[in-house]
């Protein structure tokens, strides 16, 4: 097995300061928000790598950097050995861009309402002057819709059908990797299962690789081969699926698993987690999780733990073993 995507030391800092004049008048300092902090991981070909984490943990930002929608502040993403941010050979960059596509959470917002489904699906190919004859029709059938749908407009479709259209569009350029950012969060459960099954089928048929972004642990458990857990922009734990769910090593992962509601846990009394995610502009020193961590010691308040391997797991916690 070889890695098709390599993410190394990826960092993205957003300047969220007030406008310059306000800063001068109010004497407020520059505010920098570290959305993604020194994240490294690899995705193997034809596997599903999931990123989980709560709101603001940096999942979407990593996805957007991977497809080139947001530039990194530091670090790099290599796809098939090509670094999008520094590669100067246009042909290589174009090839990689076509190799990696993205599906977004909101199937309503991501389709242009005035275009036919055919135009929407064909666009990634037609802007490059490629041949689109019969393309949309074929892809629609591949995602479980019908070729006659190509002439319709997005409003004629339900949420689940729209997400299928988004998937068809992502497939148009013949990608090898798809970044899926919460692809089923806006869908009802009965429709979510249709989309998840479709994604699994396409992975097998086309040999696709997925970066699967989600905050839903049961969906991640269902889909992923390997999982990275993010907290405040940093990877706190990474492990193959069963390893992570059977033996979570980071106190945050453990807290997340305990807190997640379970359909088979009738009347369960949880001891709910303490506190909330801190402000990303002023993250706590040391381990970012220490203010909420039940086992934190002095060292945690001072020194930021690095990711270190323990068996098949990588974990960023001083006390994990």
């Amino acid at each position: 097995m070889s890695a098709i995507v390599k993410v190394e030391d990826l960092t993205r800092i957003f300047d969220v300061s007030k406008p310059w004049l306000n800063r001068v008048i109010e004497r407020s300092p520059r505010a920098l928000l570290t959305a993604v902090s020194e994240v490294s991981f690899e995705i193997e070909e034809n596997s599903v790598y999931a990123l989980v984490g709560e709101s603001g943990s940096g999942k979407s930002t990593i996805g957007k950097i991977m497809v080139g929608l947001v530039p990194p502040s530091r670090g790099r993403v290599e796809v098939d050995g090509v670094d999008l941010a520094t590669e100067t050979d246009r042909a290589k960059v174009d090839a990689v861009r076509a190799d990696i596509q993205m599906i977004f959470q909101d199937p309503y917002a991501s389709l242009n309402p005035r275009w036919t489904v055919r135009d929407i699906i064909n666009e990634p190919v037609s802007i490059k002057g490629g041949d689109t004859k019969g393309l949309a029709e074929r892809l629609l059938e591949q995602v479980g819709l019908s070729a006659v749908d190509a002439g319709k407009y997005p409003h004629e479709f339900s949420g689940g059908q729209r997400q299928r259209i988004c998937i068809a569009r992502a497939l148009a350029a013949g990608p090898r990797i798809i970044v899926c950012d919460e692809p089923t969060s806006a869908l009802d459960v009965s429709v979510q299962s249709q989309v998840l099954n479709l994604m699994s089928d396409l992975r097998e048929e086309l040999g696709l690789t997925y970066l699967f972004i989600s905050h839903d642990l049961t969906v991640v458990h269902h889909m992923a081969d390997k999982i990275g857990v993010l907290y405040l922009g940093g990877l706190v734990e990474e492990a193959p699926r069963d390893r992570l769910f059977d033996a979570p090593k980071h106190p945050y992962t453990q807290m997340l698993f305990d807190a997640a509601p379970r359909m088979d846990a009738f009347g369960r009394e949880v001891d709910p987690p303490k506190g909330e995610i801190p402000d990303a502009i002023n993250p706590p020193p040391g381990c970012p999780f220490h203010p909420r961590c039940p086992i934190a010691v002095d060292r945690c308040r001072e020194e930021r733990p690095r990711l270190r391997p323990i068996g098949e797991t990588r974990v960023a916690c001083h006390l994990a073993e």
Partner: protein
Amino acid sequence: MTTPVLSVRDLVVEIPTRRGVLRPVDQVSYDIHAGEILGVVGESGAGKSMTGNAVIGLLDRPARIVSGEVLLSGEPVHALKGERLRKLRGKKMGMIFQDPLTSLNPLLTIGEQLTETILEHLDVTQSEARERAIAALDEVGIPAARQRIGSYPHEFSGGMRQRVVIALALCAEPDLVIADEPTTALDVSVQAQIVALLKRLCREKGVAVMLVTHDMGVIAEAADRVAVMYAGRLAELGPVREVITNARHPYTAGLMASTPVASQGHRRLRQIPGAMPRLDNLPSGCAFHPRCDRAEPRCREEPGPSLEACDGRAACWFPLTEKTEVSA
């Protein structure tokens, strides 16, 4: 049997439109007793919010109750209007919505909002009201309540705001709380805090709670009974464990089997074909029949039966009697 805190009887809500009259709530009946949490689940557009809003008299025009009854501790309230409705709503019923900002006034401090509500509904002095407000914030887990009482809603995080809304919903000591997707916008860890809080308050204060959510996990952990809605009607109603592990209505069974469960690994998910119909295009007979693998000609011709057809559990001509795939 004691009188239920809330009793909804054959409730019908209609919306007149240019294309005809829609029925977002159709013949819905259920009870909620003191200290009980009734979970309400169903797909988007099934009529969950519309049912909750009809109960608290907050239907947006042109939607209106055309028949049926809403009884609060045995008293009919569905016909109340204006000032009497408003008074009753604040005193006897509390509301918690998905977006806490819809329930909070951005221009008033949370202390002002709480004391105002308390003074309006309880016979207390200004300073007693203030003390009660602090106690209410303390109860829902706002740290340093006495100091935070002068803060404005925007100074709180989403989870903290939802706690304030819960304090506001409970400060006049209502008998019934309607919580419509109270944790949907929140993170898992905060959701767990809010659900634990709701359960504790329900148990300690004997409040009856209608908890609307699309999260089966939340229902399993919090609700005593669950009502499953489909296209405006109750498809199934029963004790939570029974409905989840032993669904009788084919829609409920499909819903359970299509939900990923961590303990079942990479098993292929069951799919329910198609999507819920729109109200202006309801199929004949049982609205679920085009998606149902048990449908017979009768299902196309006759509207689904009342819940009584299947021990008061499921509105289906051919309910399941075997155990479904999902198990605890």
